[in-house]
């Protein structure tokens, strides 16, 4: 009987471990613990950095948003699809266009699917408010090579499938109360792809 008991403990332990990892979204195919606030396709989770987050949420945040700040200080929106709903990827070129955003300062940064900066030396991995020549009407291109026409550029080289993170620092109180009423968030329009699929 002792062997059956030990077998039960081992099997139960494995199940307990895997279920914990799945429910906290730690495994690649696990649950997405982000309870989204969605603005124009950009997803955020405003329980990040909040004591209200439950244990599963806290585990997910520790894995994917470690040392994230409270939402009154900063909110993070993530988008991994273009305007047509296709995953954004290294072998395509995209035009990101935006207007005035409801925060003291903002930035858009490119990360790979593991939430790290892609391993390239281009030095163009983000576009922020200080790069926008017109805060009410700005745009930049995301591509693996610098645009020849001089358009502002964020490099996706070595990123494979990637995501863009929009950070709003000290967001307006009105925006936090009613994010759905925000001015339009940036759009991600696919320009072309090396292996087809362009607009």
């Amino acid at each position, binding site marked *: *009987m002792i062997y*059956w*008991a*030990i*077998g*039960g*403990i*081992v*099997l*139960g*332990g494995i*199940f*307990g*471990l895997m*279920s*914990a*990892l799945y*429910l*906290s979204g*730690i495994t690649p195919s696990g649950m997405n613990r982000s309870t989204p606030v969605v603005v124009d396709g950009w997803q955020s989770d405003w329980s990040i*950095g909040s*004591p209200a987050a439950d*244990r*599963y949420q*806290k*585990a997910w*945040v*520790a*894995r*994917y*948003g*470690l*040392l*994230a*700040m*409270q939402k*009154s*200080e900063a909110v*993070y929106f993530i988008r991994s699809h273009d305007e047509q709903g296709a995953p954004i990827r290294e072998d395509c070129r995209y035009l990101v266009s935006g207007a005035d955003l409801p925060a*003291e*300062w903002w*930035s858009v*940064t490119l*990360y790979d699917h*593991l*939430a*790290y*900066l892609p*391993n*390239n*030396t281009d*030095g163009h*991995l*983000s576009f*922020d408010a*200080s790069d926008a020549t017109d805060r009410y009407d700005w745009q930049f291109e995301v591509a693996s090579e610098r645009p020849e026409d001089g358009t502002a550029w964020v490099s996706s080289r070595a990123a494979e499938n990637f995501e863009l*993170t929009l*950070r709003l*620092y*000290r967001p307006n109180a009105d925006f936090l109360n009613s994010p759905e009423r925000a001015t339009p968030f940036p759009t991600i329009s696919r320009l072309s792809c090396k292996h087809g699929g362009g607009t």
Partner: protein
Amino acid sequence: MRATMLAFALCAIASAIAVHLMVIQSMPSFIMSRTTSSLKAAGLKENKWTAAPRIMPLTQKIVRSSPDLFYAVCLLDLTSGQVQISVPLWPAYGSLSVFDDTSENVHISNLQGNSQPLEIIVALPGQTVSASSDTTVVFLPGPSGIAIVRRLAPDEASHKVATELVATSLCAAR
């Protein structure tokens, strides 16, 4: 045979519940501990500000680090007493945030301005803190945590200025 199967089932259920709860409970602390160990391995000392190099693909240690910001980190260790923090303000966006050992953001201060340095004391619950009225007291649930200064420094020149401010900043046991 029935008793054997019952023992198997009970052990499996009890083990699954125990391991599940233990993993979920300890995951944030485990990840935070690994991050702290990684930072120590990179040369960071406890109760001392360390300026991070400019965030680039080869220097990033933490997911979603921003390449537009200057970061300074102090690993908080309250085992030998409360920790005093003092950091200069910054003309552009800046913040001082304190995280506990589960990565929860327990305090944040605005660093944007041109007046006197920001002062805070980090203490444990129940401790008596003697501090001036303009000093903020932050309580951590445990003896370890991380304080982070973020300053908007999107270019080499502003990052250099922010780095030089670390010499006039304080993070030390009282």
